[in-house]
């Protein structure tokens, strides 16, 4: 027998909207553009049984099974980014040079378990 608790669709693992403003972190005087960007983040549960929409690894499927048998001993799998995209940032460096730099993995596009 396994422990099963229904999960609301809204609490499933998925990307949530997060706008990062560079002025909020005090970087507005050296970052020229963008002033901020939609970075997003992952949040939600990875419950048993894992469906295909949850982008789960084989390991996560097994972990949810073990978790359902022993909720105290084994945690649920984590909800993490599985696809990220880059952005370009235009800024002044420590020597007042203007730099346009490409940064990988800055925006969460998809989450998974």
């Amino acid at each position: 027998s396994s422990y099963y608790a229904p999960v609301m669709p809204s609490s499933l693992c998925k990307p949530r909207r997060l706008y990062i403003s560079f002025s909020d972190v005090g970087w507005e005087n050296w970052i020229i553009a963008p002033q901020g960007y939609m970075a997003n983040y992952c949040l939600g549960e990875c419950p048993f049984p894992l469906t295909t929409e949850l982008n789960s690894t084989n390991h996560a499927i097994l972990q949810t099974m073990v978790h359902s048998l022993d909720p105290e001993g084994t945690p649920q799998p984590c909800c993490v980014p599985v696809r990220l995209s880059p952005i370009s940032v235009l800024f002044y460096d420590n020597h007042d040079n203007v730099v346009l730099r490409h940064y990988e993995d800055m925006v969460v596009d998809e989450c998974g378990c």
Partner: protein
Amino acid sequence: LSTRESLLLKSLGLSAKPSPRSPAPVPSVLWRIFQKREIPSPWSPGREDACRVEEFNVPGNIIRVFSDQGHFLHSGGPRTLLCLEKHLYFNLSVLEDGEQLTMAQLQLQFGHNSYRAPGPGQVFELRLYHAPPPSLRELPSPAASCRLLLAQSFAQLHKSLLFNLTQVGRDWRTPSRNLGLVLEISVSSGARSSALLGRPPGNFCAGADSFLDASLLVVSLQPGQCKASRKKR
């Protein structure tokens, strides 16, 4: 928070939080590239190879524009056909270890905005020399002890001139090898002949004195921060 911020800045390739003192205007070429990446066109929606700078057709994920830190050696006067002599120096020491310089382009900008055909006094000769070591700089004519890098003629109607300095830029990554360049702009030989016919030479430098600025655009690749592009099956 400051420790976390330092770690984050380091991961962004910065040793400390920049605090620009005299920030230069953003070069238009960087704005164009940035905006193109921000709003991809319907014909090129994907970022197939984010570690390539399509505008210059070279590998790279970092584009820097260095301001010139050299000083004027000579400005044209009425009695000379040498209109301008300037030391050009760009501090490339900010490039990180492991970063590969793939392109360096020198841009010389002039302030004039004439679309008239160049007259005999509006054609100039431009020479770029490797700057001499400090021990030879006290000579009466520093350029005489310099190795010529390139020479070309240009007309007044050019607003800017571009030169490929990729190989030179690679050498400049070693600070001891980076002595900079000497830029020399003089009146062309044709104008010299006219000068010999009695025209006042001071008039011939008019146009070259509109020299505004020199900058070095450097494209580099930090391979550790570039994912290999995966092809769809």
